[in-house]
């Protein structure tokens, strides 16, 4: 086994029934292969069963174990203690209401994803017997990056705009919208664009790029949002024009 020893880990606690948020430090058995998630589980199993956090796959794909470690939003399962300078301080994701300890309420972000209509629609649905819609590797490449999002919500935690204004659609939902808009098989782009160019839409992104910096799957939501802004501007112009045309018909 790797180097033994002990280490201190400080966690932000909050039990609504009991008190205001406070910090609690735990001493734990350290070894080189210990992740932040392993450390928390060790504490929960051996010292304090009330320490509360989410986790499942422990391989960086289910997106459950998001938290902020020494100020940076990360997935705890793939962050090794040996790589973090002491003292180590674990706090819940920012910009979401805290439910208990490291568990936050992410429903607002989940609902925003729902708002961008994240599913392909075809003008006329082809019967299944007629087989698949064609998509060349090159066309698939266009959705490759944005379709990697695991909905861990680290980007919402990092986004200064979402922190100030919950109306902003936010990074992951923007990336998700862009993923479906750039899919060659989808035929409901206009509807989706309209959902994005309203008051709650993409305009508020100030391109700080924090979302892309913290994304554990390299999705680059900041870039997706910039592209959506360009497309949105086009769509707005189109709508203004068609409104004018309609009005001129009315006259």
């Amino acid at each position, binding site marked *: 086994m790797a180097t033994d020893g002990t280490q201190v880990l400080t966690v932000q606690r909050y*039990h609504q029934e009991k008190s205001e948020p406070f910090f609690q430090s735990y001493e734990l058995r350290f070894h080189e292969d210990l992740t932040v998630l392993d450390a928390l589980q060790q504490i*929960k199993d051996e010292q304090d069963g009330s320490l*509360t956090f989410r986790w499942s796959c*422990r391989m960086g*794909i289910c997106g459950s174990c998001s938290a902020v470690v020494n100020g940076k939003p990360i997935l705890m399962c793939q962050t090794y203690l040996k790589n973090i300078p002491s003292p180590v301080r674990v706090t819940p994701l920012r910009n979401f209401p805290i439910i208990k300890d490291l568990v936050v309420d992410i429903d607002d972000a989940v609902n925003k994803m729902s708002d961008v209509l994240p599913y392909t629609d075809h003008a006329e649905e082809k019967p299944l017997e007629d087989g698949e819609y064609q998509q*060349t590797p090159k066309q698939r490449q266009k959705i490759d990056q944005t*379709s990697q999002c695991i909905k861990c919500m680290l980007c919402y935690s990092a986004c200064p705009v979402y922190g100030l204004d919950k109306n902003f659609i936010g990074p992951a939902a923007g990336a998700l919208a862009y993923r*479906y808009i750039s899919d060659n*098989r989808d035929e409901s782009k206009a509807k989706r664009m309209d959902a994005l160019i309203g008051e709650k839409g993409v305009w508020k992104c100030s391109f700080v790029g924090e979302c892309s910096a913290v994304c554990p799957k390299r999705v680059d939501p900041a870039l997706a949002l910039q592209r959506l802004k360009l497309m949105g501007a086009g769509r707005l112009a189109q709508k203004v024009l068609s409104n004018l045309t309609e009005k001129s018909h009315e006259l």
Partner: protein
Amino acid sequence: MEVFESDILIAGGGAAGLRAALAAAENYPQLKISLVSKVYPVRSHTVSAEGGIAGVMRDYDSFKQHCFDTIRGSDYLADQDAVEFFVKEAPREIIQMEHWGCPWSREEDGKIAVRAFGGMSVKRTVFAADKTGFYMLHTLFERTLKYPNIKRFDEWFATKLLRTNGGVTGLTALDLRGGKMAAFKAKTIILATGGAGKIYSFTTNGNIKTGDGMALAYDIGVPLKDMEFVQFHPTGLPRTGILITEGARGEGGYLLNNKGERFMKDYLPSKMELGPRDIISRSIMSEIKAGRGFTGPYGPYVHLDIRHLGQKIIDEKLPLVREVSKDFAGVDPVYEPIPVTPVAHYFMGGVSTNLHGETEIPGLFAAGETACVSINGANRLGSNSLAECLVFGRAAGLKAAEYCDQVDLPNLNPNELEDEEKNLDQLLHQEGNERVAQVREALQNNMQEHAGIERTGEGLKKALENHEKIAECFGRISLHDHSKLFNTEFTSLLELKNMLTVAESVLMAALHRQESRGSHLRTDFPTRNDEKFLKHTFITRGASGMITQEKPVTITQWQPMERKY
């Protein structure tokens, strides 16, 4: 107590549960569908499925061939009518996923690509890089957002199924965030809660895979079928058990011993690394026993070598293999072989159903890994399980929707609800000197030691004795956290209760089956015995413990013969 009403209640938000919800929602917009899941659906363990999904997609392939591969892989324990239905439906489901936007990997001409997989005689495994389950789960989840008649209950933990003699009536569940128990009244219930890999100490499975649906069904008298058959995947990373996909071998990867030899030549020369999982896992164990493995701080292992595929193929088709090998084993497979060792992975057994997902209790259905139809028999072929989730998820969703027409919304017994509330409260405040983690670890170690790849009658008896003691300890567990709100120590306790039921059923069934078949290797009965054991094992709840029975296997066109490759 709050009571929610639904036509169809689905417990579990992985591939099978979501597919069931979509089938019902799309075809029966008037139905009220509730999706109850202990995690957000996108956290479900489907997300970790990697290599692909099987279906006949090419002219060179045939339904008959896929059926035969599956049946031979099952060591002739699969029900052949179910396999025929499954094989016929699988391609349709793959196309349906495509129409819903799933980003399958493609051939140059834009067609859906296929790759080779273990035990499949031709290339028929459709994939999306090596994150197939992840892409499928997100596609399905996003699709459910289109249907207003699917109401989600995210982070609700189901505690008990309710029934009368006439059939299922509902369930009780804890709202983790609200901190309260509520009742769900439903005409039909579909269990889609996944497998129970967490009853082993070394598993590919995520933390949530605790066999909840199996235990809930068992508790109200539904038989569990073929529970002795637990698949050990040949290639998990030492220490964590994280899965390295069979797709790595499908794309041409080698298994090497410490002499640098492709040792599968000595065990299965016709298939080499692309044999079925039970045979490959046993071969690895045999190499290790013979001293031809590597020794590491976390136990012995062999090498999976994909260096010769080159960086381009690895990054394009096996990006997750590279990612997790680097993150969790400290090796970059472009330059170094990956250390791998067999690891508990999948339950062939589960809640007994027919091919419409129906259990013996009217109105109660099951689909996916929770269920046992059985298409997998004694050993599942890699990439059949994702297809199984879709095919039988849909079948259960449709059948449940039909059934809704025939029944009225049942009434719940208020006394029963009160009792459950009291029971939960008692568990929350129970006193004693045991801790959840210790008892859970004892259970996992007991299963790992005695119900792993190799089993003996003596070992299983010993394990059952140990199990009884472990179950006694459960009653002496006290919690640190007595709060109602998001109490994950309490849900761990409830999960442990479910794990105890599932683990015992595995031990009972394994002791009963005095033969070796598929994943079940009894070293004291090393051969297959069709005369006595070409049968399904049924475990049912009796007045004083588990009752073991046998039921016949359905054979249509493929007579059992020696399993040769």
